């Protein structure tokens, strides 16, 4: 299969064979061509050359509908549910052949019977908007099965799930594959998922086949080499000795509401000293986003005090600059970028109005902004058409790199990071983690909120657990145990503590 987009050869002669009833992983870095390959399969793109054979027969798949008719179903990275509709309505809507007049009694009987056959279930009357991310992902899978898919393609389904949720979802998928009901194709860049769940693996690199075979026959090093080639993986900063300085960030009794006006952060107190990383563990949706938004000045707290360097912190631009506050928020395109501005302008959002980028405080030096942008694009290997490309034309991983380039400038004294490596490939993850450690070693106070427990165990000096807007558990790095933290994340111990 070959596919060219403009001057990028996304697929360069790839061949893959998926055996019926197997759990097959498609492994590769961001931009390796995995998504393009399956989009050709699903009829979103037409391949420039190549054939698709199903049960030995060559098939043309001009559009998604044709793919569905052939029993191909795909679960996308982003959810394709209608938020205001119930589980049952979402299932029904997926079907193309619903009658003009819906006989809800009969449909409900059908849906209930279908759900009873499945290895996992959901309340058919729950509106999709109330489901947790893991449940939404399950509904997406249920939807495909309800449509009668025989091949289920999962496109990085775990990038929005907690480790527990993703293990659960993938286990269910694997069970369906083992039972012979389904052929599962998992697109991923996470080695752990491949090793834990897949039976077969195909590795892609730069739009070509880079190896593959039964997972059991391949060791970890072989997979890493196939994925990255001979290229060395950047970044492995050693953790310096902990030289905890004075308390830099302090929150006292802070409360905040979410977008729907319900309490999201409740009476939260937290301290971060210079030179330490405080990790906040927790399942997403327990107030982490609102907490970061308050610190970023994007959300008004209801009550409580925030002090930075011993003084009340009102989250203004001037204070952020003076106190060295930097933020890596979740969903960087929405939270930290101006979509319609260029990469260069987005990189300059923090300091375009200060010397050396602005003369006399108002005359912006475009040349200087562009020079710096070229430098950062090179240093952080941001893949884009150049400094003038609109930031929303970049892929998710590269938007993330652009924001990182802006926020990890080297003079940060307080760094707030939320899921900084979410959706990034192995190499980029190593690099970013090492940069965060570097910041800590330089004496910055770091507040790291992450759904990835491995990340916290690797980076944090102290770990606290956030549940339902409160901190429910605190532990030192030395004593931290994943299973204990996991128990607190799911709320089996509920008592408020002060970190």
């Amino acid at each position, binding site marked *: 299969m070959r596919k060219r987009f403009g001057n990028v050869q996304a697929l360069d002669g790839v061949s893959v064979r998926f055996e019926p009833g197997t759990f097959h992983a498609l492994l590769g870095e961001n931009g390796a061509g995995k998504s393009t390959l399956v989009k050709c399969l699903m009829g979103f793109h037409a391949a420039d050359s190549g054939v698709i054979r199903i049960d030995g027969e060559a098939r043309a798949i001009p559009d*998604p*509908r044709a793919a*569905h008719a052939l029993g191909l179903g795909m679960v*996308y990275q*982003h*959810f*394709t*549910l*209608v*938020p*205001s*509709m119930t589980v049952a*309505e979402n299932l*029904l*809507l*997926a079907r*193309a052949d*619903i*009658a*003009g*007049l*819906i006989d*809800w009694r009969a449909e409900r009987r059908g849906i209930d019977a279908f759900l009873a056959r499945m290895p996992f279930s959901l309340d058919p009357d729950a509106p999709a908007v109330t489901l947790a991310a893991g449940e939404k992902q399950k509904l997406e899978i249920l939807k495909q099965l309800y449509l009668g898919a025989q091949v289920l393609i999962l496109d990085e389904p775990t990038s929005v799930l907690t480790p527990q949720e993703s293990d659960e979802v993938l286990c269910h998928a694997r069970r369906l594959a083992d039972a012979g009901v389904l052929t599962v194709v998992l697109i991923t860049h996470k080695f752990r998922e491949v090793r834990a769940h897949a039976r077969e693996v195909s590795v892609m690199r730069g739009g070509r086949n880079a190896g593959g075979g039964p997972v059991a026959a391949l060791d970890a090093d072989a997979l890493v080499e196939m994925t990255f080639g001979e290229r060395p993986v950047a970044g492995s900063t050693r953790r310096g000795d902990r030289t905890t300085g004075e308390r830099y960030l302090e929150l006292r009794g802070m409360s905040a*509401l*979410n*977008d*729907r*006006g319900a309490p999201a952060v409740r009476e939260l107190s937290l301290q971060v000293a210079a030179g330490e990383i405080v990790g906040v563990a927790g399942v997403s949706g327990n107030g982490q986003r609102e907490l970061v938004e308050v610190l970023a000045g994007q959300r*008004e707290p209801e009550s409580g005090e925030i002090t930075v360097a011993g003084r009340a912190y009102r989250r203004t631009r001037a204070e952020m600059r003076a106190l060295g506050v930097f933020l890596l928020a979740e969903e960087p395109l929405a939270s930290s970028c101006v979509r319609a501005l260029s990469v260069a302008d987005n990189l300059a959002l923090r300091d375009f109005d200060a010397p050396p980028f602005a003369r006399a405080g108002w005359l912006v030096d475009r040349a200087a902004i562009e020079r710096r942008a070229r430098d950062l694009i090179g240093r952080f290997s941001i893949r884009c058409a150049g400094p003038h490309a609109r930031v929303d034309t970049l892929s998710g991983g590269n938007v993330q790199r652009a924001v990182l380039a802006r926020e990890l400038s080297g003079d940060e004294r307080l760094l707030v990071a939320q899921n900084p490596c979410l959706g990034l490939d192995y190499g980029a993850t190593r690099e970013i983690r090492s940069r965060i450690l570097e910041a800590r070693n330089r004496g910055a106070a770091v507040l790291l909120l992450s759904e990835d427990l491995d990340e916290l165990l690797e980076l944090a000096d102290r770990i606290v657990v956030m549940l339902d807007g409160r901190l429910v558990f605190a532990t030192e790095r030395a004593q931290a145990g994943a299973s204990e933290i996991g128990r607190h994340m799911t709320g089996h111990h509920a008592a408020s503590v002060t970190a």
Partner: protein
Amino acid sequence: MSPGELGWWGVAIAILGGAIRVSTPYLFVSLAETLTEKSGRVNLGLEGTLLMGAMSGYGVSYLSGSPWLGVAAAAGAGAAFGLLHAAVCNLPRVNDVAVGIALFIFGTGLAFFLGKPFVQPQAPRLPTFELGGFSSVPAIRAALDVSPLFFAGIAAALIMRWAFVNTRWGLIVRAVGDNAEAARAAGYPVNLTRTLATATGGLLAGIAGAFLSLSYPGTWAEGLSSGQGLMAVTLVIFARWRALNCIWVSLLFGGASALGPALQTVGVAGYYYLLGAAPYVLTLALLIASSSRRHRLVGAPGELSINR
């Protein structure tokens, strides 16, 4: 019996009667806007549609002698305006709010231009149900003199509510309005759905216009619609995009509009024009009360550009 003898009861009865009478166009335009917004677009041009409906309804009723033919003409004119809105919005990179404002001005101007010959003559009006026959009090008889279109509006609200849940078309409209990407992935035509929803919305707004010119106030004049088509947007927000709530909200706005004339019956005439502003004050108050710095509007379809 003179109104004065009824005292404040007279005011209450007059407000009730006014609410029923004045609410009908509010009901139709709010249902029209609900349907359009459920499909993910805002039609700010309903004011123009309303006037086109009023003018064409009046004109056809006058020329043909049949007010019901007038209502049909108004519905047709409304649907045509809805189609126009949808067709322009279907073009890539077109903003529905801007198109709506353009159609508002265009519809108003066109209605005044084509309606000039109908300002003087009296067209046959729609009949009414005289539900107050049991009472000898003229105020009650007047209040319960109800247009069939009022009941048609209530029926439309009930049907819309039912259809959103129980028909394929209803589900598709909701899906397209709440998550167009999901609807597209499931193979549903987004633009076609929005086109049909906007056209049906226009049809309802056209009927609202026919009520204005053929029932109450029952004449064709410029300024007839007095902003009701624009207020539909507020009504829909207040009704939380639910068809049944449109009934209560319309009655509330109808009652507010009837405040001035009702107080006149007990001799409070000094504030007539001030009280005439009651629906607009109510609109402002509702907009302020239903918006919040802290949270988004509950129940708003996800694809609305004003909600993003």
